[in-house]
């Protein structure tokens, strides 16, 4: 579904990614794990079109979307749930969701948008109770739910999630990941960037281990969880299991 091919990218003259490739099959959840600064979020930004790569390609269902700007990439079906949630804090929950479906206009889309709204409320019932509340007044967990809900309103083919567990309590993280499991069950392709490698590998089908801008290891989640290097470096006790 999503294919990232030998991407070099960076900020200004600072190179971050050195020829990274990644592939997510339809309905697959793949995760990127690695230490801070390994380039996980940068790769996600390239996939979302927020950052243009210096070289390499991004393909969606075989089609080259490398040069499609970020706001139009949403229309192709690649949707980002940004790190730190980036909600429209002063706007209500309902308006945030409506903005998620910004590109889906016209009479034909209206019914689909409405059913997607219902699906979001089904996944995150708490949002339905908070419709008129400004997004900035939600709890951290609710905000993350809204950020995911807003992205789902765009009818994604590939959902890019940047650190959805950041700053949340374990119980809330559990809730959010169980929703991600449901989404995977419904056939949505997902790329998950996650600081907590153990958590990510528990839920994803496959994983990529990144270090200083390169993929150093890839494999099924089970393989990676069993790999001695991964266990030592990324799943070590000092890494914190909460």
């Amino acid at each position, binding site marked *: 579904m999503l294919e990232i091919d030998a991407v070099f990218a960076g900020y200004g003259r600072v190179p971050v990614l050195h020829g990274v490739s990644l592939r997510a099959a339809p309905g697959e959840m793949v995760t990127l794990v690695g230490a801070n600064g390994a380039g996980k979020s940068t790769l996600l930004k390239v996939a*979302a079109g*927020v950052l243009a790569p210096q070289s390499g390609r991004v393909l969606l269902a075989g089609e080259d979307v490398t040069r499609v*700007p*970020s*706001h*139009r990439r*949403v*229309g192709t079906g690649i*949707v*980002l*749930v*940004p790190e730190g949630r*980036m*909600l*429209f*804090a*002063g*706007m209500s929950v309902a*308006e945030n969701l*409506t*903005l*998620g479906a*910004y*590109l889906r*206009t016209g009479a034909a889309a209206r019914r689909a948008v409405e059913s997607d709204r219902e699906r979001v409320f089904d996944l995150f019932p708490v949002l339905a109770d908070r419709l*008129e509340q400004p997004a900035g007044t939600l709890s951290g967990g609710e905000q993350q739910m809204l950020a995911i809900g*807003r*992205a789902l309103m*765009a009818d994604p083919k590939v959902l890019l999630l940047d650190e959805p567990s950041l700053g949340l309590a374990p119980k809330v993280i559990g809730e959010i990941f169980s929703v991600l499991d449901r989404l995977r069950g419904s056939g949505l392709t997902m790329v998950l960037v996650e600081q907590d490698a153990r958590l990510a590998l528990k839920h994803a089908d496959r994983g990529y281990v990144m270090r200083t801008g390169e993929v150093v290891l890839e494999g099924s989640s089970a393989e990676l969880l069993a790999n001695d290097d991964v266990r030592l470096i990324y799943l070590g006790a000092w890494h914190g299991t909460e």
Partner: protein
Amino acid sequence: MAAVPATRTLRWALAAIAGGLVLAAPFVVTDKYLLRILTFVGINLIMVAGLSLLFGYAGQISLGHAAFYGLGAYTSGFLAKLGVAWPLALVAGVAAAALGGLLLALPSLRLKGHYLAMATLGFGEIMLFFFTETEVITGGSNGLRGIPPAGLGPLVADTPQTKYLLVWAVACVVLLLAANVVRRRPGRALRAIHGSEMAAQACGIDTVRMKVQVFVISAALGGLSGVLYAHYVGFISPSTFTLHYSLVLVTMVALGGMGSLAGAVAGTVLLTMLPYADAIIPGLSRATVELLQDWESDIHGMVLILVMLFMPGGLAGWGRSFLARISVRRARSAGGDA
């Protein structure tokens, strides 16, 4: 939740009352002085409606809006003096301001916050210099005299009443259009850009295009306002199109409250009428009026500082918390009855 239809009814009622008052004013008000001030309120409202979209909704500050006001006024005034029919002069004035807005927006909307403020401020100063120096067109610092009143063929707005009605007809149309824009998809997109540009892009909003569009619309409304001003007063000079005026406009939006058109309207009415308070408060002493006029700039500055410090939500923020309190009280008393 029950408060939503209540506020909506209230909003419509207020709009209807305001509309009625606006329409009735020239027939009821015999005081030419008051009518003149009310006409200025209308002119400023058109200007501030545009600035509210740009600054209040999209969060893009402009400290150079007086330049668009001037572009509209000088273009239309100059052409009308050459004998060009007013509607054409009007279109040209608005187009000139819109073009100026586009030329400024394309390079400078890459800038944010303070940098955008500085770029627009610079633009305002350059245009002020231009208005003063291109004497052939603008009459330099002596100004442009004898601009004919607005009109189309035999219909000429040359009495205080007809001038008032023309200005307010335009102002009402502009406000209705703006109110429609902010409640719908484009308004949401503007507020989204204000909230977070990256998140707005992640929702599929073409932020660059939106920002350029709103800037051009805002500049065009500034030009429209300037055209009406030039043909209303009949004389324009560079002293009108200064940084001070740009700052007053920003103060009006800020006093009203960011992201509220109704607030911006309230802020405009209040600040425009303040130096002429004697027109509506009959017993006001001459000394007080003089004080208000002499200290006008200082008062604007103080208002801006006080709003930023103590009521960042502006008048609209006050209004909202007032309505919220009412609905809470109503909900409580309803609960008590049951």
